[in-house]
């Protein structure tokens, strides 16, 4: 990384924020929910990989921690929704 790279990541993050805000004001209905959450996921991935240096992490344990957290959440949310949807 370099100063310029960090600033570039920040600019991308701000641009993505501008995109979500504009998209939300266009009122695209169902599409916008998915798109807005997808952009949030991209933004947090950028922060995790580049600002929190997970991209440069050499320890397998640390590389795996975030995917483990996401998998755990996916199980919680998935199982809860099987209840909500088919009740």
């Amino acid at each position, binding site marked *: *990384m370099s*100063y310029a790279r*960090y*600033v570039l*990541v*920040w600019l991308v*993050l*701000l641009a993505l*924020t501008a995109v*979500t*805000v504009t998209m*939300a*004001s266009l*009122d695209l209905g169902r599409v*916008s*929910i998915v798109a*807005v*959450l997808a*952009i*949030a996921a991209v*933004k*947090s991935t950028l*922060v*995790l990989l*580049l*600002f*929190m240096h997970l991209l440069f992490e050499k*320890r397998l*344990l*640390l590389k795996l*921690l*975030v995917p*483990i*957290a996401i998998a*755990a*959440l996916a199980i*919680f*949310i998935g199982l*809860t929704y099987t209840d*909500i949807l088919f009740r």
Partner: protein
Amino acid sequence: MESPEHSTGARIGMWLFLLSEILLFGGLFLLYATYRWKHPGDFHAASQELSRLDGTLNTAILLTSSLTMALSIFTLSRERSARSTRRASLFLGATILMGCAFLVVKGFEWAAKFRHGLYPSSPVLLARPPGEILYFGLYFAMTGLHALHVIVGLCVLSTMLALLLRGSVGPERVAPVENAGLYWHLVDIIWIFLFPLFYLIS
């Protein structure tokens, strides 16, 4: 001088803590998703009342504070000189100021809600449909818990700044600043999700 093993251990401990934080907020996000599923109309109506401008402004502030945080650590780990320590403390100071700015905006936002009689269990709120009561309950609980995290983050960062200026952390001992930075970035990530869920999705 710290050993690489020591700093790796500290990092693993920090990430384990962050994992528990992700699950804590994850549970609240699940609660939000469930109630939203049950009351889509009420959630839509209530979300229109939030100030999108305040939310966007706070997003920009937190993202920028994440940048200065990352730059502070980058400066410290790149070169060992008094100049790099000074520059790192300037970046850290800027991060702290932006964290305070976030809280000020949040304070104005909450104050505006209170003026309209909207606060947990207020008579005005309880007269509303059940979905809107749930929405504002989640709004105050989740942004409140997040703001609490910002306050804790500010305390940690201020401690780091004091240690940096005293010389007990610095280019020779970056791990504590790195871990404080990890915490700050996580608080930023949580806001990255809170912002669209409460202010944008309708």
